[in-house]
């Protein structure tokens, strides 16, 4: 029950960051919204793993956290230098 309530709250936070991702006036706003969406996805998948009582989701969460960090770094580098591979 508490897990379901926490999933609803985290899901609403994901909707907020999705709104900022669509609406965001500038490119760094969208990068920030995407990064927040990744972090919230980590929380949501951990909660889902608790709900199903399975340990299958940890690897997926680890990969999502890693790809989210690298995506944020690459997008920020692109905005700073207009070039990814220097």
């Amino acid at each position, binding site marked *: 029950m508490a897990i379901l309530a926490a999933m609803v709250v985290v899901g609403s936070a994901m909707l*907020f960051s999705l709104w900022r991702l669509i609406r965001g006036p500038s490119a760094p706003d969208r990068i*920030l919204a995407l*990064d927040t969406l990744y*972090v919230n996805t980590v929380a949501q998948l951990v909660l889902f793993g608790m709900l199903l009582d399975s340990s299958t989701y*940890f690897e997926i969460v680890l990969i999502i*956290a*890693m790809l989210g960090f690298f995506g944020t*770094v690459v997008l920020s580098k692109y905005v700073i230098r207009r070039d990814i591979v220097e």
Partner: protein
Amino acid sequence: MMATLYTTLIVLLLATGSFFVFLGGFSLVKLSTFFHRIHGPTKASTLGVGCILLASVAYHTVYGSGLHPRELLIAVFVFMTAPVSAHLMSLAALSLMEGRPDDPSHTMDPEGHIRDDADERAEREAREAVEGRDDG
């Protein structure tokens, strides 16, 4: 008695974690400029995810299939990468601000305008550079 204690602990951790994650998402919508907005997700959401991961460790240790150190690995990874990505994002926003002075001791106005036409400017500059080379 012990089971009640564990359940209370897990529910408290879940409530704290989801509250802070919600706060991070809400500040993303509510605050006015980018340099205000970057505070919410990078600090509050990181604390929220840490609390939720601790609750998950406790839950799987007590009710599930034993202790999984991988969850602590996720928490360590999120705590390590959040400041780095926040720093890079604020650098990206700074590089797009208008009238950026060369003197770093001058503090930028956090309400300042962040350009949203960076692609058009880059294309125009590249085109002008090519045309200038043709003329010369």
